[in-house]
């Protein structure tokens, strides 16, 4: 079931399906990944590698690195990625050092 999002979507772009944490998710084609996840009701994007505290996008412009997610084994800033059909995205867990692939 789609979680409730605090964000209101106003667009009407065609949808594509991506994989998020192993589950299919439909998002607007070509949309910004961080925005699409927020609109889909995803509140926590990763856990801080220090305390495990939940984190989520903060700046949306590639500066803060809070929206880091795993895409094809590489941690990337979700706010700098556009979605395409079949994109495989996973959350970074505390145990996995987000620096590992940098």
């Amino acid at each position, binding site marked *: 079931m789609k979680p409730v999002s605090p964000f209101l979507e106003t*667009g009407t772009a065609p949808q594509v399906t991506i994989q998020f944490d192993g589950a299919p998710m439909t998002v607007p084609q070509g949309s910004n990944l961080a925005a699409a996840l927020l609109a889909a009701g995803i509140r*926590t994007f990763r856990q801080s590698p220090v305390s495990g505290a939940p984190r989520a996008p903060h700046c949306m*412009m590639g500066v803060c690195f809070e929206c880091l997610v795993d895409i094809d084994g*590489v941690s990337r800033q979700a706010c*700098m990625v556009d979605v395409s059909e079949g994109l495989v995205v996973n959350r970074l867990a505390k145990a996995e050092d987000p620096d590992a692939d*940098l």
Partner: protein
Amino acid sequence: MQTFDVVIVGAGPAGMSAATEAADLGLRVALLDEQLSPGGQIYRGVNGVSAERAKLLGADYAYGKTLTSRLPRDGLAYFDGAVVWAIEDGFCISYTKDAKASVLNADRVVLATGAMERPMPIPGWTLPGVMTAGAGQILMKQSGIVAQNAVLVGTGPLLYLVAAQMIRFGAPPVALVETQTRSDLIRGARYAGGAMRGWRYLRKGLALLAEIKRAGVPRHRAATGIQVEGTDRAEAVRFHADGAEHRIVCDTVFLHHGVVPNTQAARALRVPHFWDDAQACFVPNVDSWGMADVEGLFIAGDGAGIGGAKSAELAGRITALRVAELAGKLAVADRDRKAAPLQAASQTDRAVRPFLNAAYPPYTGALTPDDATIICRCEEITAGDIRRFAKLGCEGPNQTKAFGRVGMGPCQGRYCGLSVTMLLAEAHARTPDDIGYYRIRPPLKPVTLGELAAMSAPDLEGEV
């Protein structure tokens, strides 16, 4: 390896205008930008925006299309999605595009890396749901999504613009929690002369305030003791104002207390910076053409000191004139003749700045936060930790890395740098200039081994 007369980093107003001007003057220009479409943050996603959404966001945003539409032209190679991670003397510009690292050569470099919002460390600011006001605006611009139950916190014109845009999107903010005081406004009034020269901005600001009032959005002023409450996400904003304690329940908190130059690339190139008291931030030392004390290096736009989008556009063109003159494409007299009207327009455009700086100063509570507040988001270092390091003899930002990994996380100090400088300056009763800033080293952005491995052989051979 491709060689250009000038490589411009950043396709916001300054970078786009510098690139088109330089190309028109006969230079071979490369414009690199990490976004997938041009516009920078101020005109983010403007090429993909519907007429309807552009109308909601306003004419100043839609104007960005004028700049992006000028990019396709002879002599200008625009690289979208190109993340620059190293700039070496000479210049060698290393970047990643499409999961492959490459190198460009250029005689000159223009950094047009713009601004970032001044980090606003308050209790609870690391919780999911706490974003910058600029982030809220980017979500509207690029993605057409708007936060439905949000509180805007901080100070400055952007707060009013974002509030008005949210109203037009059909999701008025729950409240504005503003930090500027009556005495700030009185201080600002001293610069009323300049403000009147910038009357267009004042008129726009007043129209936004009227729009916010019409929508019935409550405004709290001179707020102090602001904190975000929540366990695993933002649930409420608590603050003190008008002699009372307030608590506003919300899903999203948008923070904003001004913008500061994004100095990361300039720092890595060892450009000297100085502390600007009026804007409470470091700015690179450049001349009126944007030329830095590093041979062949220029900085144009907000990255050289905050002036806003229009000033940035003018600065890009002014810098391009100087670059063209140095490259032998433009006589000095022609350079000056072309620059004069741009410089005059820039002066007029910037006239409102002293008023804005005085009337909407950064929130004191976030400049020198309480001990428990996290400063370095990546490594979870608090203001109290920094003060403790200072007591133990930590004198400068670089030493804080050894004391507690401050600034060593993925954001590479972008979000804690100014706070660390200010906290150390306070602890040692010294000036920010005296304390200095982090030493920034490449890679400016993460680059993977896979991306390096995909580098083509001629790129690796370089000029050896």
